[in-house]
């Protein structure tokens, strides 16, 4: 398949784009990438490809746009079945979708509350966030990855979000490693994978972006 058939409207620090980059790398699929300036003016291509949300990531496959990162990852799994990212048994797929949905609802927004808050609210946001990570720790258990032995769908949805944790730690004055050691071990295990390391930004760079966002939101 030639590179031109796949175009990713991308943004380096976006964990949602990170998910798509990792999924494509896991499948060994080549693609073109166009960096979008999400804090500035959005390109015509982005606006026309994702008129509903006007957000990255958008994956254009033979010109046809796909939006919403968790849906794009499922599409990538459908279109390139090997190696599978979702488990094969229907009930295990339920588990994967359930925790994927949980992650969507709780992690990024929960973390955002920490850097968007002031005063006592920060402590409340931090406690809720740690509780979320503990629930994820509970479902991970003693497994290497959320799906079991193999890196898969839930890991791909979650690992890019962890690049924003350094920023949450700075503003919330806590360390994920101390509060949720098993979770930290899982993060380190994922970061041993080349596809993950190549796809994700440095947490320090994300921290700089969060500082900018705080100014924009009037938190500073």
């Amino acid at each position, binding site marked *: 398949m030639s590179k031109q058939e796949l175009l990713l409207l991308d943004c380096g620090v976006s964990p949602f784009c990170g998910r798509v980059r990792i999924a494509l790398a896991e499948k060994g699929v080549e693609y073109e990438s166009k960096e979008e300036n999400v804090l500035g003016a959005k390109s015509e291509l982005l606006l026309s490809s994702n*008129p*509903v949300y006007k957000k990255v990531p958008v994956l254009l*496959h033979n010109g*046809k746009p*796909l*939006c*919403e990162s968790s*849906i*794009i990852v*499922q*599409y990538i799994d*459908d*279109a390139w079945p090997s190696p599978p990212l979702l488990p094969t048994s*229907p*009930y295990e*797929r*339920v588990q994967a*979708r*359930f925790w994927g*949905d*949980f992650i969507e609802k709780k992690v990024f927004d929960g973390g955002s509350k920490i850097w968007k808050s002031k005063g006592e609210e920060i402590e409340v946001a931090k406690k809720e966030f740690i509780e979320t990570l503990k*629930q994820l720790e509970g479902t991970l258990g003693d497994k290497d990855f959320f799906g079991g032995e193999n890196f898969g769908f839930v890991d791909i949805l979650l690992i890019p979000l962890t690049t924003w944790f350094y920023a949450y730690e700075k503003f919330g004055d806590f360390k994920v490693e101390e509060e949720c050691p098993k979770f930290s071990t899982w993060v380190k295990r994922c970061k041993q994978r080349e596809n993950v390391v190549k796809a994700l930004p440095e947490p320090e760079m994300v921290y700089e972006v969060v500082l900018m966002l705080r100014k924009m939101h009037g938190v500073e």
Partner: protein
Amino acid sequence: MAEVKLLGFWASPFSDRVIWALKLKGVNYEYVEEDPHNKTQLLLQHNPVHKKVPVLIHGGKSIPESSIILEYIEETWPQNPLLPQDAYQRAMARFWIKFGEEKMATICAVFRTAGVEQEKAIEEATKLLKIIEEQGLGDKMFFGGDGIGLVDIAFGWLAYLYEVVEKVSAVKVLDADTFPQLHAWIQNLKEVPVIKENLPDHQKLVGHLKRRREIHLALLNCHN
């Protein structure tokens, strides 16, 4: 054939969509009515994380969250497919199911508001319904094409619940002039036998939502 049980609530659109999917697939199941204000041990045991209906229990295994249940039903009982075979069309179907879930609260905000706030809520609901009509449904008879699919099931609440929401909130948002395609879709959906025969009692729903709205308005007054 392992036993199928559905924990549901008669007034919940999330329960209804699971019932429709099971019936469209011809799956026999036992229905257990749950009271959201008096949750049973069974519910808490089978959905410990969110503690909500619906929950599907199949061969003892618990499947919560209606959109996840719908995907499970589709994969476990492949007869009468409700999702497209084509990967891109399937992704589009998932997109609209997700959009509907995310925006449902905003579309129904007219129910929880009054006065100026309600006028804003009407505007927001209108914008979202326009997106659903123009970009989701388009010129198709159903979201699924010629026949109904999971997206129609997921949006089904617009066909019967929303008119009750409008009635008790004394507003009209989804009118035939502004939304001709959605209006046609509603009429077509209501004629599908499984849907027609499995709608909650209209009057009972009006009474139930009237009481819920009174509570919302009382809460609004408390905060003023």
